[in-house]
């Protein structure tokens, strides 16, 4: 059940948006490319971050990092668009499209993180140790790592296709 939920979450939203871009803006594949590259790069970075946070104290604070991380990825897009990818000018449309990808990726990441931090309220009212993180068990942690690895691979695929669409 969790498998199907995460598979649909990781595949459907980004591919639906790609389909919309290709359907209505098919004369400009570079728009689709920028969107998908923004999605892929953000997804890779986020999944790497979540993977590194597994089993550490920072794991339970991941929801606090979603928005700053998203803004950081958008900033990264601004820097690359105005330096190494700047040809004629800083293209605002390219920037908006790659940022759309970054924001959508972080929406998916937020849903993934919510599932990872699937908390159980302590049954003992005097227990002040806080919520129990699902990934604190070894098998859950292994399973989460597997999803992070899958996410990274998926991100690489999206980034690769995005790069081809943007430059080919």
């Amino acid at each position, binding site marked *: 059940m969790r498998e199907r939920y995460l598979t649909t979450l990781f595949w459907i*939203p980004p591919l639906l948006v790609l389909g919309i871009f290709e359907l*209505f803006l098919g004369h400009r594949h570079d728009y689709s490319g920028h969107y998908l590259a923004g999605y892929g790069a953000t997804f890779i970075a986020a999944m790497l971050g979540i993977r590194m946070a597994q089993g550490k104290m920072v794991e339970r604070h991941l929801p606090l990092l979603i928005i700053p991380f998203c803004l950081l990825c958008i900033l990264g897009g601004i820097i690359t668009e105005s330096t190494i990818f700047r040809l004629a000018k800083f293209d605002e449309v390219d920037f908006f499209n790659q940022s759309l990808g970054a924001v959508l990726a972080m929406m998916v990441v937020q849903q993934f993180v919510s599932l990872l931090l699937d908390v159980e309220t302590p049954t003992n009212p005097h227990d002040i140790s806080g919520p129990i993180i699902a990934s604190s068990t070894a098998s859950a942690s292994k399973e989460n790592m597997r999803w992070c690895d899958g996410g990274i691979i998926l991100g690489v695929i999206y980034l690769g296709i995005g790069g081809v669409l943007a430059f080919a």
Partner: protein
Amino acid sequence: MRSLNLLALGLLFVALCIGNLMITADRSLIPRSLDAAVLHTEIKREKHPGLDDVHFIKLSDGQTLHVDKTLAEQLEVGMRIRKVAWQRELIAGEGKILLEYSKDFSGMLWAMPLCILVAFAAIIWPILWQFLSKETLQ
């Protein structure tokens, strides 16, 4: 925290979609009010020459504008251009040019609302998934 994050991401997504629409509309000059002479026109090449070239016009009021290709091709250096904001008629020298939105803007007009719909689906994904699959996540 999850709801707040998703709300912030949703608002950011909508803002970026609006940005796309505003920029592509602006390149048609339709939203702008103008009264200046064209001092210089320039084409800068991008990744795909002939397809995504960037057309600039430099005006006597100091503005340098990125305009659509079809419009740039009708403008000449020395031509005085005048128009009222949101009107489609551009008085150019002795003649008139009927301004049109580009294919990019027309595409964005359909694509952006649909993208917002997908983003909304991503925001309510757990509810949507449970509704469609009739399975619970817990």
